[in-house]
């Protein structure tokens, strides 16, 4: 059991999810290895909560989000959404499941077809999955545009006529069209300016309340995740190293990587800035095609021990509701598990 509190029902359960991409090389394009983008992650997303998924570029957080929605054919593992196992469902049968699970993409420029009007973009999922009449669809599009704060008058315009923040609202309206339960937000604010980011985040929060949505919020912005998430999972090199309720994670990070990551975030307050103890990590993230033996973080960890270079730490609940994969917490803890 991975849930924090037992009364909440998980809407999404992911167990031991693996997504490996093959590497082909040489004249005969033989398979010479694989990039272990996601290498065994397990987590639950409770109904109505926002699970923040953070990590640096290349850690596999986006791949993880896409794999959960089965935008890829996953290598191994199980995914249950709304009590249905979709880990091994063929793509054809997944279509009928798609209305429940939607995605908001990072780049609003690239994820909207420049040759379709806003109305056509938001209407497309309705065309595909419902049997509404044309007038009903248009009415629904209007409602969706109201919900995300876009003026209905602009329905016939093309994406290029909108600013970045407005385009992201179009993407959100499209994701909402089929009354989904679960939305994966893949860096929805990364391409936006600071003053626009807050607008979109507030909108996502309002919609969550209004429609009872559940989010998997993928981001590299740790301060924004602190604002929006209920619980936070930290990924490093294809694995979740720590998962905890938001306040606990930010107040007292357990895993050395989470500690370093949080200390590296610049503080927009010079008086606090002087007090913050920075942990400067040495070196770079190893390649996911050739991860180190033992713990993935052992090459950069400030608290590395001998065992870390040999044995991979288990991902386990070390305190109620707090999961981490680190040898530092493996002995004193036999009672908690």
């Amino acid at each position: 059991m991975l849930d924090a509190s037992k009364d909440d029902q998980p809407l999404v359960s992911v167990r031991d999810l693996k997504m490996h991409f093959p590497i082909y090389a040489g004249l005969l394009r033989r398979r010479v290895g694989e990039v272990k983008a996601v290498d065994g992650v397990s987590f639950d997303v409770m109904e109505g909560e926002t699970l923040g998924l953070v990590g640096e570029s290349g850690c596999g957080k986006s791949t993880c989000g896409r794999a959960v929605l089965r935008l890829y054919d996953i290598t191994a593992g199980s995914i249950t959404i709304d009590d249905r196992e979709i880990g091994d469902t063929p793509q054809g049968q997944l279509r009928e499941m798609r209305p429940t699970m939607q995605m908001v993409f990072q780049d609003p420029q690239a994820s909207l077809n420049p040759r379709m009007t806003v109305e056509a973009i938001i209407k497309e999922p309705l065309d595909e999955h419902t049997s509404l009449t044309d007038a009903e669809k248009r009415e629904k599009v209007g409602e969706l545009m109201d919900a995300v704060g876009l003026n209905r008058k602009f329905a016939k315009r093309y994406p290029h006529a909108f600013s970045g923040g407005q385009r992201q609202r179009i993407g959100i309206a499209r994701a909402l069209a089929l009354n989904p339960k679960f939305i994966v937000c893949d860096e929805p604010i990364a391409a936006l300016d600071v003053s626009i980011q807050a607008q979109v985040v507030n909108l996502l929060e309002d919609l969550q309340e209004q429609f009872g949505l559940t989010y998997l919020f993928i981001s590299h912005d740790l301060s924004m995740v602190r604002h929006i998430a209920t619980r936070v999972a930290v990924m490093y090199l294809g694995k979740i190293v720590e998962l905890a309720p938001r306040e606990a994670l930010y107040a007292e990070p357990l895993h050395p990587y989470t500690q370093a990551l949080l200390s590296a975030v610049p503080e927009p307050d010079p008086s606090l800035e002087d007090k913050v103890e920075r942990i400067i990590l040495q070196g770079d993230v190893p390649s996911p095609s050739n991860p180190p033996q033992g713990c993935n973080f052992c090459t950069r960890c400030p608290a590395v021990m001998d065992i870390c270079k040999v044995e991979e730490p288990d991902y386990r609940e070390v305190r109620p509701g707090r999961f981490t994969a680190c040898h530092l917490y493996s002995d004193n803890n036999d009672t908690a598990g």
Partner: protein
Amino acid sequence: MPDGALPVLDVRDLKTVFKTRAGEVHAVNDVSFALKPGELLGVVGESGSGKSVTMMSLLGLLPSPPADVRGGTVTFGGNDLLKVDAETLRAVRGGKIGFVFQDPMTSLNPVFNVGVQIMEPLRKHMGLNKRDAAKRAQELLELVGIPDAQRRLKDYPHQFSGGMRQRVMIAIALACDPQVLIADEPTTALDVTIQAQILELMKELRSKLGMAVIWITHDLGVIAGIADRVMVMYGGQVVEHAPVKELFGNPQHPYTRALLKTIPTIHGERAARLTIIEGQPPIMMNAPSSCPFRDRCDVAFDRCERENPPRYDLGDGHDAACFFDARTGGPRDA
């Protein structure tokens, strides 16, 4: 930073427009600032606020047309950089003024190894021969913390990670001992832990080499940790300028105040809801005749519609371009 020292770089009333088919875009409007020796000036603003265009204009890096640097003076080493001939300007660029660009991926040449690229300014500007240049290039790579420098000189950009590539960019910018280093969003494309490495490196290099730095960013957190003074830009203008502690502790312009409130923090109090700045940044198709922030401002009044506020001096090196006096809570006197 010595207060009375003469500025190394003095920019007055810089004005740049872009000529487009739809009309002229006023990207930089009467921007003035002075950079003192050894200090780090942070320039903050959102995209389109004119922060990068300002720096590109003063080094003549903008293609013309469409860009037209229409007025102002840029005093550096006794010359006005806007008036000097191409030859002199070339000696300044990459020589006495170094430039680090945002994206280390696209600003290095992929077909030359990094050694060649670091040696280029050394040979062009300092006239070093190949052997001395190679030696100096190795020292530079060591200076910016790239291990195994001698071997790495022969590596190509794709063989470096993002953070390492940005270190190479910094090494190139530092090659000729510049008096001024202009860094345009140098850490924006990097991850936070790598950003922390680069910020630490910059602090170290500044105390070692003593050059003045202009650091452009949209990240107020980065500025808080590294800058001595901060200039906030909006709509092609400087709206507020103050020493770093003063700016964060006592912001006077409504835009700065709003901006500081919209960003969530890691350590401070967690707000239940983010404060937002309504509306969109201005479209700068006309020469400014009113305050660029008025449509999104919560204290705007009729005068903001009629006139563009000048920068009011508030003492202690603090100025703000706003008709509203946050200290008295009323309009400023004419």
